[in-house]
């Protein structure tokens, strides 16, 4: 295979048929160019999607109750599921090793008043862990702590916008704000990167709010983050287990999608991955179909070349060339032409992407690029293509009878 004579012959055929080789090689190079551009675009899309998730905690899971859609365990469909403090405790006990931070969420709408200023806001009553789950940034003061929770202290942490609306120029820390006519002390002000809406929220200890609303132990959502060392597979396994356990606890059909939602960032990531995998598959498929045209072109030219060289092949056979050696020669030539022209297409695409790619920085599409897997994919496709293109001509060549060497005229 790495024989000087074989290469000499391949280079000779190429040299004597420069234009012909260029024209056929061009179709393969062009096909690879398109293939690489498609794959790079898919990469760009993936980069864009993933970029949008990056500013949230990436290991978050939310458990939200719903309404059952299937009868199960003696209950009819249409049952509303209600999470309670006991559920939170249960999760905490059951998955102590898996959980990093854990918090309940209890939602309430309030009318807030400070002196003459009023406004309507959403209160999220949570555990202290919630600060870490939501990555809440405290600008001044502090978040509430375990002691506040145990004491059911009437304290709140308000968003920057809330502070601006109600307190104007005053420093809200230590002041009392009325929420639905109950007085709460402001202990902190928080901000959120780039999201004004989040800054219009108020956090309070969940125990305080549960007491205010008739000593309930209801909660709306359980939010948690899992052990950050988990990889995707382990994270998915954990959220799956969590869902199973919670559904069993609330007697929800395991197949019932509406009864309980366990939303996992990892799952969203997984969805994006499988979405882009499908796109990548389509890209490879389309590229390969275009490549088929190139393969047929090269095969066509090779058949023609073999016809021209029939006599020479006959002479070689008369001199003792075995059919295998002839087949190898033709296949190698075919692989060489396809691979070389394919790599020229690849390099061309790479140069264009390197020059133009960094200019794309929109949310859905950023930095399209060629990576190692693209190059490997393209290489494998090219070699397969070369073999396919050379197969028929090689068989034709192997079938040349050495007798043609003697039939002069």
């Amino acid at each position, binding site marked *: 295979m790495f024989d*000087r*004579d074989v290469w*000499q*012959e391949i280079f*000779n055929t190429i040299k*004597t048929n420069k234009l012909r080789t260029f024209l056929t090689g061009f179709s393969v190079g062009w096909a690879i160019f398109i293939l690489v551009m498609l794959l790079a675009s898919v990469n760009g899309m993936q980069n864009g999607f993933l970029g949008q998730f990056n500013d949230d905690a990436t290991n978050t899971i939310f458990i939200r109750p719903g309404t059952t859609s299937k009868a199960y365990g003696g209950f009819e469909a249409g049952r509303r599921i209600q999470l309670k403090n006991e559920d939170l405790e249960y999760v905490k006990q059951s998955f102590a090793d898996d959980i990093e931070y854990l918090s309940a969420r209890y939602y309430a709408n309030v009318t807030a008043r400070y002196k003459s200023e009023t406004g309507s806001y959403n209160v999220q009553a949570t555990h202290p862990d919630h600060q870490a789950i939501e990555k809440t940034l405290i600008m001044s003061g502090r978040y509430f702590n375990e002691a506040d929770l145990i004491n059911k202290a009437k304290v709140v942490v308000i968003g920057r916008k809330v502070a601006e609306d109600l307190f104007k120029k005053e420093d809200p820390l230590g002041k009392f704000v009325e929420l639905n006519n109950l007085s709460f002390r402001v202990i902190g002000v928080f901000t959120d990167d780039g999201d004004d809406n989040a800054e219009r929220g108020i956090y309070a200890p969940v125990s305080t709010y549960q007491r205010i609303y008739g000593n309930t132990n209801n909660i709306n959502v359980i939010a948690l983050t899992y052990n950050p060392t988990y990889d995707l597979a382990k994270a998915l396994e954990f959220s799956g287990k969590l869902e199973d356990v919670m559904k069993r606890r609330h007697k929800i059909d395991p197949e019932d999608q509406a009864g309980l939602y366990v939303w996992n960032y990892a799952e969203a990531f997984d969805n994006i991955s499988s979405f882009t995998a499908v796109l990548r598959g389509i890209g490879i498929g389309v590229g390969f179909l275009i490549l088929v045209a190139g393969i047929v072109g090269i095969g066509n030219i090779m058949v023609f070349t073999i016809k021209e060289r029939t*006599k*020479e092949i006959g*002479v*070689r*056979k*008369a*001199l*003792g*060339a*075995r*059919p*295998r*050696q002839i087949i190898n020669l033709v296949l190698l030539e075919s692989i060489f032409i396809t691979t070389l022209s394919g790599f020229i297409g690849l390099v061309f695409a790479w140069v264009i992407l390197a020059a133009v790619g960094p200019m794309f920085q929109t949310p859905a599409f950023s930095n399209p690029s060629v990576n190692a897997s693209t190059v490997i994919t393209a290489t494998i496709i090219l070699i397969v293509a070369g073999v396919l293109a050379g197969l028929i001509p090689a068989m034709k060549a*192997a079938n040349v*009878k*050495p*007798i043609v*060497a*003697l039939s*002069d005229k």
Partner: protein
Amino acid sequence: MIEIKDLHKSYKMGSNSLHVLKGINFKVEEGELVAIMGSSGSGKSTLLNILGMLDGADSGEYTLDGVPIKNLSETKAAQYRNKFLGFIFQSFNLINYKSALENVALPLYYQKVPRKERQEKAMQYLEKVGLKPWAHHLPSELSGGQKQRVAIARAMAAEPKVLLADEPTGALDSKTSYEVMDLIQQINDEGNTILVVTHEEDIAHMCKRIVHLKDGVIVEDKKIEQVRAAQYV
């Protein structure tokens, strides 16, 4: 060296069958220089094809250097051709993009002789045919006689048992023809067995034996007094 018994060969031409060789019996000893003569259609080319293992016979026996030649696979035939036979063609059949040296080395390549060794050997044979200074020229830079001498060197490079020459002087003028025949005679003098297919009387008389073919049978097989080609050169 060569032994043929009752060899038959016919070709299908549409619905007709053309009986080309009708029972050839023929024996060649080592060191002979045999001319096979006959008009076109006499079957001499078919006989040469069968002797060269380029074609198979319908019936009959063919033994080459004690080895029965029958039902060979393509690969086996290629091996035997490489080992036993050297071909010299009317139109030289050199590979036009390879230098004289590389052409001569080609049979050795198919014998899997290492590159350096086969180049040395090829150079020896080129020297023998007097073309050492032309070793690195392409066939297009050589005259007809020189090309045929390169072809002869190529046929000999693999050190075959038998040289088969198909009209070796057919494309050459008479002076060059005699030069080539002189070379063939010299090679024969060294003890090589050579078969020459020709339709030229003067060329045939430079061999040691003439076999006449007509309509697929041997009509005459006689030993002759060899005319040395050297006197015309």
